[in-house]
């Protein structure tokens, strides 16, 4: 296990390095210029030239790359061209927001997906299964941003049950006691997390239904029933445990999808996370922020994948990792 883990971590580091290199090259080779006015306001070319010099963009690409890698090795992510603050600070503000959003969405995805999948499998080919089947197919098919806009217009703008954007209410948040601030955060989290979680839950439910149906007809399940165990126990204890394996795989796969989906959800709900920060940085050609965001995101995805592999090995005793 230890050898396998070392190999796996080394491979993960190689993947992150490749992502950094490709992102660096793509960014610098793509057309566009970082130091341009944000609006349609003329800017003195001399000001732009001095800024390019200050940030080393007038140097050769290999030299810039070498300097970037050197700084990265020392844990320095540089300074944002557009925000005029250390990239580490900008990421430090954004990453927790994204983790809260994606983490909540992941929990929602797994809980709802599992519940619906099991419920459908237990009532296979009956009306509730068919109805939920169409519903999950619909949810699985809609673009995340579209669902976000829909929820925002209905529950935010029309019914005003939930706020239409942001992490907290900027007017009252600081004046609230601790519990109130927590409630305020949860209230703002509800729509974006539901948007992201629902789409994922629909896919999870369909996987879980199929896995349960496969398991539910196995001999050991029939034996459990023959022993006179209640159906609830048969399904939730005997069948479900073995139908959980696809879910562990899905957990590893979901993380990157949730991260990419979070870009659009963060945009729609003005959620100040990694996705919004990165999208704005791409539009502004803010190279240090884009590079740091790509590095962080790839690290998180690689770690998620690693964690899924470990969980998979733990959850299924039949699976043995290489090297053991």
């Amino acid at each position, binding site marked *: 296990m230890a050898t396998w883990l070392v190999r796996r971590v080394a491979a993960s580091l190689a993947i992150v390095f490749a992502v950094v290199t490709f992102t660096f090259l793509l960014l610098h080779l793509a*057309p*566009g*210029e*970082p130091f*341009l*006015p*944000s*609006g*349609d*306001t*003329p*800017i*003195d*070319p001399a*000001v732009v030239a001095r*800024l390019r010099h*200050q940030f080393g963009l007038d140097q050769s690409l290999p030299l810039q790359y070498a300097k970037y890698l050197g700084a990265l090795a020392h844990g320095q992510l540089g300074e944002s061209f*557009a*925000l*005029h*603050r250390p990239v580490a*600070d*900008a990421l430090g*503000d*954004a990453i927790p*927001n994204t983790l809260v959003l994606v983490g909540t969405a992941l929990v929602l995805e797994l809980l709802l997906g599992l519940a619906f999948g099991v419920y459908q499998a237990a009532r296979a080919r009956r009306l509730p299964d068919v109805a939920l089947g169409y519903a999950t197919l619909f949810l699985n098919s809609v673009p995340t941003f579209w669902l976000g806009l829909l929820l*925002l*217009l209905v529950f*935010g*703008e029309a019914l*005003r049950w939930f*706020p*239409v*954007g*942001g*992490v*907290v*209410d*900027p*007017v*009252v948040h*600081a*004046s*609230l*006691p601790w*519990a*109130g*601030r*927590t*409630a305020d955060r949860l209230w703002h989290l509800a729509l974006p997390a539901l948007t992201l979680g629902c789409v994922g839950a629909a896919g999870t439910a369909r996987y879980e239904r199929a896995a349960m149906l496969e398991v539910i007809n196995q001999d050991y399940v029939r034996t459990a029933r023959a022993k006179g165990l209640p159906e609830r126990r048969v399904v939730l204890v005997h069948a479900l445990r073995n139908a959980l394996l696809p879910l562990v795989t899905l957990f590893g796969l979901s993380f990157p999808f949730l991260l990419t989906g979070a870009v659009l959800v963060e*945009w*729609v709900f*003005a959620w*100040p*996370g990694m996705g*919004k920060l990165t*999208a*704005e940085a791409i*539009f*502004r050609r803010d190279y240090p922020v884009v590079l740091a965001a790509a590095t962080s995101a790839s690290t998180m995805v690689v770690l998620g994948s690693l964690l899924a592999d470990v969980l998979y090995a733990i959850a299924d005793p039949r699976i043995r990792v290489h090297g053991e």
Partner: protein
Amino acid sequence: MLGAMPIAPFSPRTTALTSLLCLALLGCERRGGCTGEYCGTLVFASVGEPDGLLPPVLQSTVGRDVSDQIFLKLADIGLSTNTMGDEDFTPLLAERWEWDGPLTLVFHLDPRARWQDGRRVTAADVVFTYDAYNDERVNSPYRTGLHWISAVTSRDSLTAVVRFRRRYPEMFYDAVFHMRILPGHLLRNIPRDQWRSTAFARAPVGDGPYRFVAWKAGENLELAADSTFFLGRPHIRRLIWRFTPDLQVAVTQLVAGEADALEVLLSPDNIERVQATPHLATYPYRGNAYGYLGFNLVAPGDSTHPHPLFGDRELRRALAMAIDRERLAKSVFGGHAKVPPGPMSQLWWIWDPETRELPYDTTHAARLLTQRGWIDSDGDGVRDRNGVKLSFRLVVPTTSAVRRQYARLLQEQLRRVGVEVLIDEVDFSVLLQRVQTGQFDAMIQTWNTDPTPSSGIGQTWTQGGVGRSNYLRYINPAFDQLVEQATASFDRAQARRTWRRAMELLNQDAPAVFLFAPENVAAIHRRIADVAIRPDSWWALVRTWRIPPDRMIDRDRVER
């Protein structure tokens, strides 16, 4: 009876729901509540986030909006936005001023003015500010506006003296408009090449009506009224900018009641949406932008040769005559834009409806094209000459719905006279790179303007602007001379006539077709009274706005 009832233990579900309810109820409890005339919270829906709050290094509009509440100028432009002379300017840090000869301007600072840390604002701060704005290490984008100032000195602690290199009508404007006075005692020890990223730029101490409170990156920024502000305590106590990634999200926040003000609604759809919202009012005011279809006059990538199509003045004139600009403006902006008589926004006093322009006349346009040898020889609907089609690529940014819509309408209008337009929608940054390097045929460009035409026209339409914002490389010495005469004239009527002649010459040359000059429409919550919007800087007068106590809503009374 009740005592005899069995008490069921709480299920986990009931416990969870009860906890959530308690949490929510606790969440509603707030401390205190503001009462009286000086309460109120104004929430701005802000598209984008400031790039800092230190005035000399700011580039973003929202950064300027916020910092203008924190830092004062010596004097400010009036509602008329007249930039000639000094009669329409309002005193701010300077309580008065006088001319000491033709090239020397003396400012007397208001002795009541204080920095928010309690120190007095002095002439030494004015001297420090000028020095900083002019310092190459600071690399201020506003430095060019100070070109004709030779020196700023202090005569005593409350008297600052500005000396100019030459006499011209906008000397006073240049002396006061570009610089926000900075606290020398707080900035002197910070290396100037680090001003963009210094901590002060994200938590400044100023001398304006509002002081900095907090900035949560990506979320919001808050200012609080300075109750001791020497020009009068602002009525609205808290200003909060909520950052949104785009205009539609900002409008949604307004409509949902989570924001109070947005400076520009831009599209007729947004305006209708706001007008249908009972708690919001719209405020139209003169816009500071204009847009045009510009033709690259030199060959793409080779500025030594004329463009194969647009090097021909008669061809450009024909295209200009084939475009129904009034109809385009009506289609895209509804009634909220005018067709400009030249490269100008509605903000500029040189706007003259009497200016002669090329008429919309498709018959004449078609005849001109035919005379130049452009005929549809193969019957494919596109004119051609010597085997070359009358076809060009039009580049527009993907981020501008207005320009993309214009591109499609122009494509259709020009198709009717046998001209093929191929639209390239590209990223804004890519567009700017392409037009700066001359790699384009035609573009739709928008410029936001200063209150004065002098700098904007010079940078974009004269020979001096080549290599700067004159992307079309339009060069006409006669036009340049007229611009120079107009900007040098102290007689406003005379200057206006000269500007008109310059614009007419430009229109005849048709390096561009001037398409729109939008009227801005702001959305502001109806509870706000005494709203005045200055077209060049929309929130500049917020300190005079108020919320009558009987119109206040919950958020106006919240104590921070």
